């Protein structure tokens, strides 16, 4: 009889333990994953965050580092301002990406290269809650005590042959992005210090939208 009681206690313990575990960890897939992640990632107009990017080239065993700011502007535009190792500005909107290097502008239109555009503009699409994201990626969202990890795997065969996965990790904001390539290369971008733009900054960055 005692043995039976022990068994019941053990059964209850296991049930409660795993129930608690299930409560803390949530797994979502596909469209549901994006619906949930969009609740966490909010558009921050007139804010900026610092970023540090590390790109690892496996064949050469070299880590390239770059850094700068990610600026959130009006009309949901995003601006990457790279300061190191050289100045480069990339402005992202819903239909084009403009790269400004040494005052020369290169524009990538969504219409011309939709595949490359949709991949390159991924951060913009996340922040702007693009409901079509689930069509381009196989997704898995893991939420654990306010921390989320979204793992995306491209569905397009061409992208799939190059990119293994994209991991987006964060809490209220995106904290880091890891792009893993099929050949072992990877890129890690860490975001820190979300601050409001000063009026001067706001005025300065707005000029980049006038194109």
């Amino acid at each position, binding site marked *: 009889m005692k043995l039976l009681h022990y068994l019941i206690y053990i059964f209850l313990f296991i049930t409660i333990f795993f129930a608690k575990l299930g409560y803390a960890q949530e797994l979502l897939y596909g469209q549901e994953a994006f619906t949930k992640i969009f609740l966490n990632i909010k558009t921050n107009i007139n804010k900026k965050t610092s970023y540090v990017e590390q790109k690892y080239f496996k064949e050469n065993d070299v880590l390239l580092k770059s850094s700068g700011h990610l600026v959130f502007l009006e009309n949901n535009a995003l601006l990457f301002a790279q300061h190191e190792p050289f100045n480069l500005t990339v402005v992202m909107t819903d239909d084009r990406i403009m790269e400004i290097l040494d005052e020369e502008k290169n524009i990538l239109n969504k219409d011309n290269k939709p595949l490359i555009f949709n*991949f390159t503009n991924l951060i913009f699409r996340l922040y702007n809650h693009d409901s079509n994201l689930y069509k381009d990626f196989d997704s898995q969202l893991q939420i654990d005590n306010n921390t989320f990890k979204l793992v995306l795997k491209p569905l397009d065969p061409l992208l799939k042959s190059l990119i293994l996965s994209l991991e987006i990790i964060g809490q209220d904001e995106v904290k880091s992005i890891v792009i893993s390539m099929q050949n072992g290369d990877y890129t890690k971008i860490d975001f820190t210090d979300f601050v409001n733009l000063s009026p001067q900054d706001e005025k300065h960055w707005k000029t980049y939208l006038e194109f």
Partner: protein
Amino acid sequence: MNSKFTVILFFVFNLLIVLTIIMRVPKVHFESSVFSLLPKTEKQRQDEQFFSLEEKFFQNLDKEVIFLVKDDNPSHNEAHARLNLENFINGLKNSGYVKNITAKIDAHTTKELSQFIFLYKHALLNYKARLELTKDNYVKKILSRIYAGFAGIGSTELNHDPLLLSRLILDSIAKEHFALHNGFLSIKDKDGSRYKVIHLVLNQDHDNIEFSENFVSTVEALMEQYEKHCQNEDENKVTPAPFFKTFFEKPKTYPHILYLGAVFYANYAAKTSKEEITVLGTVTLGGVLLLIYTVFASLKPALYALFSIVEGVLLGFTALILIYDNISIITLGLSLSVVGIVCDYTIYYCILYKYRKPFETARSIIDKLQKPLLFAALTDIIAYLIILYSELTILQQFAVFASFTISGALFFVILIEPMLLDNSNFKHTIKLRFYTHLNSLISLNLNFIVSRSKQLLNKSLAYTVIFLCGVLSLYGLLNYKINDDPYSFMTMPENLKSQEVKITSMLNHDNSLNYLYLETDSQDNLISSLGIAKSYLDALIKDHCLVDYDALLINDQETIKKDHVLIIKKLSALKESLLKANLRLKDPHPYSPKALSLDEYLLAPSFMSKSHLYLANSEKGRYGTIIMLYDITNQDKIIDTFKDFHEIKFVDRHKILCTVFATLRNQCSHIFLGFLLALAVVLTLRLGPKLALLYALMLSLACCSSIGLLTLLGYSINIFMILGLILIVGIGINYMVFYTFNHTKSCAILALITALLTTLMTIGILAFSSVSAISVFALSLITGLLLSFMMTIYIPVLVPTLIPVPKG
């Protein structure tokens, strides 16, 4: 001549004609395009010998067809839409008319293309890529992509193509307005609607009318099926083209599909020509027969007229197929007008016979009539023989057909009809009550017309008519406009034209057809010449003489060497920058030019190889290519640049065609003037200088008034109008000669009116033709003949002393 012998000879002759037609027709090729039988100048002939493959290029181009299939509404069921499109593509593939089709660009093709570009970077570097590579900040741009996490550049690409030349080449080839969307090459219109591009090459020429017909009907069925399966109910209906101008069926428009290809135009032209020949020919023939019946109250003259027409047409057609291997359908269309002319001979004869004196027989009448008939017919034949000197094959064929048709009909009238008429009595042939009433009504009306006409033949009215013609002529001479654009001669359905405009605007190209044509005796020489031409064109683009060009991408050795120097220079700069970040390339020398032969290049996916721009006849050792030139702003400079290269020539096809037609129009104008002069000489010999001058002046006045009237109606002078004027003179002289010899007879005016009505009925109907070349020709004839008729009947009123009084 013995009657029996004549009849036997006639039957033997016709038997020979029928046998010839049966044997020759299968070997003759019927052309449907105005351009198909264009003449060649001496320079063009020389060019043709050297540039022997150029025309073949256009034949190849004519085999191409493009479909743009609109992307379905996002609300549509995607799987359903995909299946519908697949069915459409498979339908095209399995139709049996398609040599190859480019629709879905699969992952395998994309990979194949990337590998090809990666392997042959030096051989494929084009001017846009080269321009980018030469920029000072190119290395910095590459660095920005190497650093960028989302640029997708991995260590494999970095070590094997650090300058990202493969990407650069691919970007420079990809047209700005094209995109690879869901595996399809797609393009957007100005409203933002996306279209999938389906390109196919037909396995036969569109010159094969049956092939064009079958292909177009298959495609139409597939397009209708596709539209039916499109879910949107509002757009489900296939819109037929608006009913206008002609009563023939126009190509349909489809809400989700745009299509473009010479085969659609060719099919439309062939179909309408065939329908017009059938319908207008039947109406013409029926009308003429009815007219003859109303005048003679008998079907016999109608039957005789029909015999004479058939005899003439058989002889004309036989002559045509014996002389020419390619016959224009347009020639046959124009030839319908001759039916009206040859009818006149029987009409004149039968009217004189109907109103004969008791002692006259059919033979005695023809003896008197054959002189003016032969005189008029010979004058016409001389006119057509003059047209034979024209270099335009269509005109030559028309002249041959007309001359032989007139000859055949005339000999039938002179040799056979007297035998037939001797047994006829028009007044008592029809005995049915109803017809008898009808006959009396008609003859009453005709008597009324004859008597009324005689009242109208007074001097004041004659002067008024001459004055009005003078005013019209003056207006015409002061305001006439010239149009030599051959595209305007072929009236094409609006929906085909509007689709062409939409597609070419989506492709961002102008409609003009300008190109450089290169032909050499070896593939190596062709690639060298191509390299030279491209280098000059690059410089001309920099000078803003043109915006873009489309050529085979393969580079010549000279260019490859120069590019390699540039690549090495940029690579060392990049390596230096990478070294600062401790990045050393695994292979320090990743670039070495790899040889690419023309044959290997042509095996690449068609998107890359542009094989439609290349032609070869290896047996004759001739190799050619075309460089399409877009948005030219300084044509003279381009011509000047290439004038010293004997293997390269600049061609503005539209301008050449316009020049050819302008030359031909001038030639026809000279023929017209020469014809008038020849006529004046013949008339002078026969009728004396005063009357000859008067006739020539009157005919000129009729022609000028016709030009004036058509100018007033908004028409421009073109080669077909001039051709009409030549015929006006030919037919007008028939009227004048017949009327001069017979004006004292009361039935002469009736004969003339009947002849005029017959001609107007035949040629008047041609004015409804959808081929503008034919309708303008008919309109000029209608106006000119009406005026010639008036001039003819007023001449005896104006100058009665000059007109000879016939004996007896």
